[in-house]
């Protein structure tokens, strides 16, 4: 049963990744592309957090209450792996920076062209015949 639930979760996450990649490549709206990108990033983060999870009971957050041998033993027995969480929090912060930058680009594109639809955008994007400076 546990194996079944486990594989259902993993398959759901992989399906979400596939759907978000579809959204990035096929949706014509730039904002929806960004939303799909955040879904992709968050799914990846969830997948990595899941790696640190342990299928045991009871399972505890990785906090060491006091610096003693007994506390350390229960910690080793029950705590989940803290490293994936540390990795994910770094990735979340970096992802925020990238998302803000892409959101800025979308706002700027809307200012310049008045649209965020790729189909209309490609009509308006005139081949710049050298407009440097």
């Amino acid at each position, binding site marked *: 049963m546990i194996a079944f639930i486990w594989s259902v979760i993993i398959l759901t996450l992989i399906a979400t990744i596939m759907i978000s990649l579809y959204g990035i490549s096929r949706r014509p709206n730039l904002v929806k592309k960004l939303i799909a*990108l955040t879904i992709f990033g968050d799914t990846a983060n969830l997948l*990595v957090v899941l790696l640190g999870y342990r299928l045991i009971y009871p399972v505890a957050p990785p906090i060491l209450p006091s610096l003693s041998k007994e506390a350390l033993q229960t910690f080793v027995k029950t705590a989940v792996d803290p490293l*994936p969480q540390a990795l994910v929090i770094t*990735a979340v912060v970096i992802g925020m920076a990238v*998302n803000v930058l892409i959101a800025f680009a979308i706002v700027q594109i809307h200012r310049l062209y008045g649209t965020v639809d790729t189909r209309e955008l490609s009509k308006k*994007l005139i081949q*710049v015949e050298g407009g440097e400076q």
Partner: protein
Amino acid sequence: MDVIGLTPIIPILFAFALPLTSILIKGNRKLIQAYALTGTGLTLVSSFKLFQLAYASENPLVYTFGKWIAPIGIVYEVDKLSALIALITAALMFLIAIYSYRYLEHDEGLEWYYTLYLGLESGLLGVLLTGDAFNLFVMIEVTSIAAYALVMFYRDRGDSVTAGFKYGLIGAIGTTMYFIALGILYGAFGTVNFAHLAMKIHLPAASFIKVSSGYVTLDVLLKAEPTWNIILASGVALALATWAFLIKAAIVPNHFWLPEAHPAAPSPISAILSGLVVNVGVYAMIRFLYTVYSDVSGELAHVVNVLSAVVIALGAVSALFGAFMMTIQKDVKRLIAYSTIMHMGYLFMAVGVGSSLGLQAAVFHLINHAVAKALLFLAAGIFIHAVGSRNVENLAGLGRKMPIATFSLAIATLSLVGVPPFNVFFSKLALFNALIEENFGLALVLVISSAIALFAYMKVFYIIWFGKPRKEIEVKEPMSMSLVVLVLALTCLAIGLLAPVILDKFIAPAAEQTVNYQVYIKAILELASKTLS
């Protein structure tokens, strides 16, 4: 503080302090330029020192952040390969900082430009020096975010912003792929440190490595068996990571962002993007295939071989595709951008070959391409700066008015197509030797694409030198820009003339140390046991 830890820290400190400093000095352009030159100059000094240290020592140098030893904390591990590429990176960044001042004389926001510029330099150096796969991810992101923002530097121009958007979107997909790969590696091996990963992959063979101190905990930690099926996990993780690196290096079919993003940026940034930022993908690929997965046997070797075959095939397609697309471009910077795709194709072909000869050729070509491509973009930038147009037709006849720039442009184009005695000829020769050992067809791809590229470059050069000017423009050669390109042009010539010495003294030891995973692991272990005892 150690010079290893210091090298990427200097530019990031300068970058973070720059917005505040520019308020204090009231946005004085000369002071900002002096500040940027100090930042990049100090980094150059530091990476030169690092280069000397790495070449003087037998083992790779290790630096631990906050004294946390290898598998627990983040370490920087610098071998000869990293130090060599870091030196080239720092030197080019310094020269391009000199060039940027005149190029951006009509633009606002020099302080933001240099903030991102120094951030980009720090990211690049971090990628090269790090000994930790997760830190590599962070540093790739630092590089990428600065690069996306610099592509959008002309934020009122639609093509820049659209190109930056595309670059950002595809880059974010790539780095997330790499993040998933890291998760899988961590799940399987319980570590993200390069040396520790290499040790666990070579576990039966690597058990010869004894930890000299009596600490059992360290031994247990280091030699714990991988938990998952490492063949499957390595296969999936390597495939995802390779995909990410292919996106970063713009190999077909992940190339489509490059011909838009590189021309849209200011010319000095185009030079950095084409010369240095795409190297990140190649370097990371070399680190994974040659250090972490070097000399693997059995099923793992099969995984690595399949991956190498894919990389070679995509590289060959890229080389031909880039060469053909070069011939039909009207925009001079777009033409150079397609040439970058072609050269990245060569590099990935050489990396995929997997022999020591291939690695040497790849490293030498990486360095030569960085210098020559940066030179080409900078020389073309001088013409673009004078005319204010990227169309080749508008640059017609300018060559005679700017002799130094034209001379440098000539050297860059001749060098990149592989005419002796310039530098790229010798690395192309090395590539040819490495590829012909693998397959005659690959060597043929190299020759054919070079010939097509020659045709495309000569067309541009002919127009710039012999073409009739459309309108008379008064241009004077901007000296600070011309001197930078002259220095780079002479470097191209010097590397070409000294090629046998450089190959023998710098490239061969670097390649030799890169494939020697045992030394790579030992350096970390020795430091760990020294710290514990």
